[in-house]
């Protein structure tokens, strides 16, 4: 089961990195964003392949040892916050596009008095 999760993480990570690279090549993404996503996903792949690294990293970095569960909890809260922000922004954009398309569609209809 753990091996299966590792393989899935590896495949997903490589897919995202290749997609980011293609987007960068097509100039749909900036160099900074390409580097950011590549580094982030390489990090995710490394952690999924060697989860014991989290414990070691926590031991090195924390004066007071916190458990892996706490670390993952904090990560989950952070991720949900990002998802929430992205969702809000997508909703706002959707509304703006809707308003714009509606205005364009209605511009030929004159007010009838």
């Amino acid at each position, binding site marked *: 089961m753990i091996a299966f999760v590792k393989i899935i993480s590896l495949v997903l990570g490589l897919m995202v990195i290749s997609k980011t690279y293609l987007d960068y090549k097509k100039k749909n993404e900036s160099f900074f964003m390409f580097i950011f996503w590549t580094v982030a996903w390489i990090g995710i792949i490394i952690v999924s392949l060697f989860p014991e690294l989290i414990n070691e990293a926590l031991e090195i970095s924390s004066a007071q040892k916190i458990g892996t569960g706490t670390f993952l909890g904090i990560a989950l809260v952070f991720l949900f916050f990002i998802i929430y922000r992205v969702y809000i922004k997508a909703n706002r954009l959707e509304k703006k596009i809707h308003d714009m*398309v509606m205005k364009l569609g*209605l511009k030929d209809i004159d007010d009838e008095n």
Partner: protein
Amino acid sequence: MKLAIVIPAYNEEKAIEEVLLSLPKKLKNIDKIISVVVDDGSFDKTHDIANNHATYAIRHVINLGVGAATTTGLGAAKKLRSDIVVTIDADGQHNPKDIEKIIQPILDGKADVVIGTRMLNAKGMPPLKIFGNNFMNFLTFLVFHKWSSDSQSGMKAFNAKALKKIKLRSIGYEICSEMIGEIQRNKLKLKEIPIEVIYTDYSKVKGQNWINGINVLTKMLVIKIIGK
């Protein structure tokens, strides 16, 4: 009294001409009937056909969804100072003769919004669709606390007061549920009138699917939690 018949359409070249030609030309207590087709960025001949047969043919520059097209149609009806607005589907599943029936409670002053319900006479409706519609009714009730026997019906009638008060933001199929929420929020008088459903091979493949139900639920919750 001016009646606007709003028809949101997306790639409906096979059915929309017949729908437009079958619309009533005269109705009791109605002085003027106009048809408003909102082509939601179709890539077939829907817009050309609408241009030939509808009073107003509006075009979305991109495809957004049935909710967006309906909102644009309602906006057009408002701009055109319509007293009553009826929405019907472009796939031919509604019988235009039912328009007279669903506007009657508005003309009598007994309702602000009328839903043409397919569920009170669901003869010919596939069992899966019946289950799916009831499931959506339940979800809509759960989120907006207002029961409708056919919350997902595309055939509805609104008076000018309802048109003014209802504020919609959905762009997809969730608009039907959002309308129920708006009827509840604005305390509008709702009536349901049984209508006929014409299920052809063409209209059967149109409409919502199961995956869309999950999407509708998510969007309803977003509307409820985040607001407009």
